[in-house]
């Protein structure tokens, strides 16, 4: 394995006026380009651990290496300028324009105006921000917009490492889901080494490559990929912490394209009515998809085929919902349980028919 980007070795933190350590002898490594979630109940030291990496909190013992260098050997101010930092409450400077906020660290690093301007433009494009926002003040933006600016600001000087403390907790669930998706898309392109704290197991499962589960006192309970934590929790604590619906949470991690799907009942517009009836009968769903040259037209049932010589003469109705190959099995499951015939139709974005997914097939996947 390559040299880790971040390495915690026997890290301890004792606060004054407290007999028990907040973090006790914690060791784990984070590889370059990896996204790691620190989760655990309140008091587990997850935020303390995060803040020790950029020395907002000084460790009482142990060693923290970032890119192979001991953070305690560096000037804390210089160290922090080299690490992106995002907090729950965003903390944009209310008295500075969005443009100036985004350019905070480049300014601290003494970049010239032209370099800052070019970088700001890049970030505006990367985050799909409205360039008009740049001249506005944080007070004029919505919570979600502010949070995006906060992440853009953390990336401004292109740090290799980003620390995020409950980055999406302050916005409503709909905006949060959108920000998470956007974050994942950006991270797929940038491959930064990211450590984030969350109390939301679902968020950790969704965003992280590995999850570090801590118990009170900063005790490491399990450090593994989300799929593994859900499939094989290391102990009773982890099992209780990740909570019920482990199966459902795992479904969220698997994409429709990851599993085999069935062909399903398919007819074309040219198919004769009696042949169509036979196809419908053989699958026993009570309908068939109408697909011409790979394109999904809709569906027909025996009622619609009555008196029509071919499928093309019968009334074809569009599907009210279908899932795509990129959707998660959880989303597919939702589509299945809300459909009349307990089947999800899978198509690509361009209405290309791919097949059908049944409850039995998903169940088979999750228990295998």
């Amino acid at each position: 394995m390559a040299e880790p980007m971040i390495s915690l070795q026997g890290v301890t933190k004792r606060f004054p006026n407290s007999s028990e350590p907040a973090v006790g002898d914690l060791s784990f490594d984070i590889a370059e380009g990896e996204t790691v979630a620190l989760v655990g109940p309140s008091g587990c030291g997850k935020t303390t651990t995060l803040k020790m990496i950029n020395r907002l909190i000084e460790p009482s013992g142990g060693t923290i290496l970032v890119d192979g260098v001991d953070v305690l050997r560096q000037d804390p101010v210089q160290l922090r300028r080299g690490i992106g930092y995002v907090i729950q409450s965003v903390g944009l400077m209310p008295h500075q324009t969005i443009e100036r906020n985004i350019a905070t660290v480049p300014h601290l690093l003494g970049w010239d105006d032209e370099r800052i301007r070019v970088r700001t433009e890049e970030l505006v494009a990367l985050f799909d921000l409205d360039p008009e926002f740049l001249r506005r003040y944080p007070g004029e933006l919505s919570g979600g917009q502010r949070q995006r600016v906060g992440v853009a600001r953390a990336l401004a000087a292109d740090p290799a490492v980003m620390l995020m403390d409950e980055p999406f907790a302050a916005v409503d669930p709909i905006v949060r889901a959108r920000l998470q998706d956007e974050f994942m898309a950006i991270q797929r392109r940038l491959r930064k080494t990211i450590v984030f704290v969350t109390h939301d197991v679902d968020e950790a499962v969704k965003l992280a490559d590995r999850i570090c589960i801590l118990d009170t006192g900063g005790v490491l309970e399990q450090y593994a990929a989300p799929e593994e934590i859900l499939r094989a929790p290391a102990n009773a604590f982890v099992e209780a912490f990740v909570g019920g619906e482990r199966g459902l949470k795992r479904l969220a991690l698997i994409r429709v394209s990851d599993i085999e799907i069935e062909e399903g009942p398919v007819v074309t517009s040219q198919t004769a009515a009696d042949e169509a009836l036979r196809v419908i009968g053989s699958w026993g769903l009570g309908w068939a998809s109408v697909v011409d040259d790979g394109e999904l037209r809709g569906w027909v049932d025996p009622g619609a085929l009555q008196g029509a010589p071919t499928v093309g003469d019968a009334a074809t109705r569009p599907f009210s919902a279908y899932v795509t190959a990129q959707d998660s099995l959880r989303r597919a499951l939702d589509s299945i349980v809300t459909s009349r015939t307990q089947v999800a139709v899978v198509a690509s974005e361009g209405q290309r028919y791919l097949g059908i997914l049944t409850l039995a097939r998903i169940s088979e996947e999750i228990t295998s």
Partner: protein
Amino acid sequence: MTGVAHLVRLAAEPLIRWDWIGDHLDEIKARGLEHLQLTVLTLVIGFAISFPLALLAHRHRQIYAPLTWVTGILYTIPSLALFVALLPITGLSITTALIGLVSYTLLIFIRNTVAGLDGVPEDAKEAARGMGYTPRQILWRVEVPLAMPVIVAGVRIAAVTTVGLVTITALIGLGGFGHFILRGLREFFSTLTLLGAVLSVALAVAADAALLGVEWWLTPWARTRRTDRATQSQRRPTKETMG
């Protein structure tokens, strides 16, 4: 007898003799400059003393209570008594006036500056620290600018108070427009008293308005917020709520 004579004269006098005012524009201007000079000097010296003390009290909380205690006592001393008490030491001088006037501004400046710094959002300071601001940069680039509206509000209160108090320094031979008030009272000359009072009030209002302008100019971020919030709520959901 003289009292009666005065009363007779008073009855014969109109409330305001515009011709007197017309004949003494130069003196009025000179007194106005004196009033302005005393006010500005008081505010500058008062702020110069208070601001570092406020920064100190903000950093080291334990000195805040004694500081407000001392300046609070200064604030409660009747101005007349203070000027009289200083006379044997500093005499009929501008120093006497400034010591008195400045001591009244200290509590106002210190309280407002500390309150302003206390009101700076914690998240802005934490983010600044996390991004690598030095403590000095956090003070000058984050805390002081964000405390500015409250600090300027203190300057406005101090300015209005000082303009009023300057009139009392007429008793030690200064007073700006206060000079007219005092003379008017001594000579039962209502024109002078009214003139002094009206001009003093006008100066206080003008100073307040000017400082409001300074605040507006210093805090561009606070300007747009209210209006834009209002229009934003009417706007359709923007970017972030769309794909």
